[in-house]
């Protein structure tokens, strides 16, 4: 791909051929110039799409009605191509079908650059792209499916009518839901068994002389296998040519950001600054902190110390929930001083790093609180560390114990552990949210610890009261039992202030 300039070139008519089907295998990279803005926008939108694919895929049975409905909605809102014809004038908000397909094409290749670098990233990318492909292929009409196969050189022979007749009984008994009539009507494809391993493995297909006899509607499995193989190879090749791309200074930061991307609010602007008092932190940690931050807070209280990784992750989170620099300094100092660090040393060594977090030192970057992606993927904790994502980095047994200590129900714990086993860490945290807040559905897709906090506060009716530093309330100890909604008296008063408070906790 070439990105020499900032001008957007008009695409020649030969490119129309490339986009004459709404679905593609992404065999050919795009050969046009695009602007950096478009580059970034396309990439971010596709990433949003893939993350939705992931979330929806765990919340609903894949390819069920609800699943399809939800994905359809995402597609529309993000302007990706559905199944309409190219010339279809049913334009939504000005983006033509052609432009959507172009975006689909280009964004896929950009994300390849970002996601080819490690096994984990590649696996994630391939998984979501496959689910996405399966969904889109499934939505095609029969004719479009055949068109697609032919366009992409999946020249599988169809089985002749005579052969079908002679094999009729065998074909009926080899696949689900086939009858004599459907066998006659449907096309069957003869596919070498190596290309149909999923069907062979589960014995859901008729095999003869090394060929699998696949009914038309099952062909998607075959196509998917092909897709996965091609994409896997392509990613490996991309990884090898990556150094050349990364040397382009305009792209390197963007690509690196994408692969750790949190695509959404980044909580760098504290609208709710100064609304939290230090005394509330203990209670809040039990009620509204995600598990990682609760863990860090507890470790800090117990050890009167946190190492760098923990300080960064927790410190930035606190900034995100609204602590001011002064509050932060007071918070950290008071805790560290209880430990082995005297006030002087704190001021000399640790205060600097707190100020740094707030952008008051060094290159004055106002650091943004870490998103879940970042916490999960970067900087894994080692001995003596308390940062990271407990669902990702804790041994399942220990995680179980911890959840038991926090009075999570046994069935809830099992659900969480299942999600952890499937590597759906954010969903596990979401489940933790649902269990500790006593709701069926969190109502949001968890991406960021501060989002957890915000949503929790929203749910709990914003039972915060604005208190000044001096005015000590007696809620200093963390009270695990108090995880459900605040008591009646409180909520009434809170309710009145809610109108005001709520606005502070709204997402943009």
């Amino acid at each position: 791909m070439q990105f020499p300039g900032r001008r957007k070139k008009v695409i020649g008519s030969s490119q129309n051929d490339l986009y004459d089907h709404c679905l593609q295998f992404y065999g050919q990279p795009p050969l046009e110039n695009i602007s950096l803005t478009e580059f970034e926008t396309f990439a971010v939108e596709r990433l949003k799409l893939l993350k939705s694919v992931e979330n929806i895929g765990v919340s609903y049975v894949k390819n069920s009605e609800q699943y399809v409905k939800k994905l359809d909605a995402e597609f529309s809102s993000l302007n990706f191509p559905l199944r309409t014809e190219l010339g279809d004038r049913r334009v939504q908000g000005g983006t033509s079908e052609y432009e959507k397909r172009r975006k689909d094409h280009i964004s896929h290749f950009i994300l390849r650059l970002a996601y080819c670098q490690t096994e984990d990233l590649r696996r994630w990318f391939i998984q979501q792209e496959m689910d996405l492909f399966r969904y889109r292929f499934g939505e095609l009409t029969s004719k479009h499916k055949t068109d697609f196969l032919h366009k992409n050189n999946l020249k599988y022979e169809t089985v002749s009518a005579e052969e079908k007749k002679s094999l009729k009984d065998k074909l009926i008994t080899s696949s689900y839901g086939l009858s004599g009539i459907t066998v006659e009507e449907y096309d069957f494809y003869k596919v070498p068994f190596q290309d149909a391993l999923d069907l062979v493995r589960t014995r859901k297909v008729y095999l003869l002389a090394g060929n699998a006899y696949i009914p038309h509607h099952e062909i998607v499995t075959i196509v998917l296998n092909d897709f996965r193989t091609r994409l896997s190879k392509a990613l490996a090749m991309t990884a090898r040519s990556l150094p050349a791309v990364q040397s382009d200074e305009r792209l390197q930061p963007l690509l690196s950001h994408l692969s750790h991307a949190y695509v959404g609010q980044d909580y760098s602007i504290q609208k709710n600054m100064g609304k939290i008092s230090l005394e509330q932190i203990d209670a809040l940690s039990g009620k509204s902190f995600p598990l990682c931050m609760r863990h860090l807070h507890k470790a800090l209280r117990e050890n009167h110390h946190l190492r760098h990784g923990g300080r960064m992750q927790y410190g930035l989170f606190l900034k995100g929930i609204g602590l001011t620099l002064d509050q932060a300094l007071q918070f950290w100092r008071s805790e560290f001083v209880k430990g082995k660090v005297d006030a002087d040393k704190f001021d000399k060594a640790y205060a600097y790093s707190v100020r740094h977090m707030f952008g008051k030192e060094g290159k004055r970057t106002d650091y943004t609180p870490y998103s879940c992606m970042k916490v999960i993927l970067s900087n894994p904790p080692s001995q003596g560390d308390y940062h990271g994502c407990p669902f990702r980095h804790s041994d399942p047994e220990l995680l179980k114990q911890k959840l038991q200590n926090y009075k999570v129900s046994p069935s809830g714990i099992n659900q969480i552990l299942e999600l952890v086993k499937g590597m759906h860490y954010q969903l596990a945290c979401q489940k933790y949210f649902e269990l500790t807040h006593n709701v069926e559905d969190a109502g949001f897709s968890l991406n960021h610890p501060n989002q957890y906090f915000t949503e929790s506060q929203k749910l709990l009716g914003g039972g915060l009261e604005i208190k000044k530093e001096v005015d000590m309330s007696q809620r200093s100890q963390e009270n695990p039992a108090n995880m459900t909604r605040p008591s009646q008296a409180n909520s009434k008063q809170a309710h009145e202030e809610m109108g005001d408070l709520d606005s502070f906790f709204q997402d943009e």
Partner: protein
Amino acid sequence: MSTSDYDPACLPDLLPLYYRRLFPFSQYYRWLSYGGVSKNYFQNREFSFTLKDDIYVRYQSFTTQNELEKEMQKMVPYKIDIGAVYSHRPSQHNAVKSGTFQALEKELVFDIDMTDYDDVRRCCSAADICSKCWTLMTIAIRILDRALREDFGFHHLLWVYSGRRGVHCWVCDDAARKLSVAARSAVAEYLSLVKGGEETVRKVVLSDPIHPFINHSLSVVERYFQQYAIVDQDILGSKESVDKVLAVFPVDRYFFKEGSSVSYDLHFSCVSVKSNSKKGGQYFDKEIMLQYCYPRLDVNVSKGVNHLLKSPFSVHPKTGRISVPIDLKELDTFDPFEVPTISLICEELEKPRAEEAEEDDMKDKENEQEAGERRRIRDYKRTSLAKYVKVFDRFLEAMARSRKGEMLKKSGEIEKDSVFHIHLILAFTLQMD
């Protein structure tokens, strides 16, 4: 009997003789070279040896047949395993940049072990076998051979007796050797019907529709079931074993009517069972037959491209038996207790026709290698090993023919007549071996 003559303590004396004069090196080399179509196929093949005192060495590789012979005669392995064809010579794998030394190809293999049937055989257990339970191997070979040929389209299968309690299958087709790990695992799963270990009572579950593969397998089992299970294994012969059969099904859902005889002298078909439930259980009779007879594979053996498996013609140190190829045409009469032991064939060797031996020795001094081969060919032919080497020869010939056929197909311009002529020449050449 051949077995009673074998004493493992004699191995150190017998093995050198075996490797010098009986092991069919030229056929072995011919097999593993696969017609020389791929460069360095033999050179990049891994062998592993277990030497005296259980010393195990991996990553053995050889550049020529001669080198293979010399090394084996020098090291005198007690056990020989064959591994994969790698990207580089296995003996030099340490010199290769890490990550680039990779297993590329290997035959698709299956290992059927009698111990995996211990829960359903009453005559023996663990490493023991007898003529009564050997039928299980016959059934396994028939079912798998059919499936691998008819369903998967493979042609070149070598079935080998492992030397003690099971059989191995080497699928040597080109396509088979190139299969990925995922493909091997898929083939093995397709062929698996008996699932579950100690904790599982009901190991076979059938539901509609019954796949043609299962029906084919059932017809094989049914052929043998009466004799094997009812008579030989006598599974209905005692209350205990009948209970075991019935334990496979939740007894409360069924009741069964015996024949009039109280002594459980039943034919299986006389046991009628009434099912109370609509869902499942309608195939219980098939499930029982399969659970008692269907082949039990170890998927892990088949999955790995780099998995090492006992080599044909190696000796089994505990029994002394040679791992010989099995002739499927005589499968029903194959008797593992008639398979020659190393002591038997060495004995047979020592009964020379003395004058002939001296004459040949003189001729042989002229050309060492040829001499060695000629002598060896004469030698094994004098022993019980001969007929098994013949089976191996036929197997190799079939592969050679098929390779020529492939080559001819590729150069498609050849006229029909000339094809016929070439076939004649080739057939003539092959017989010269």
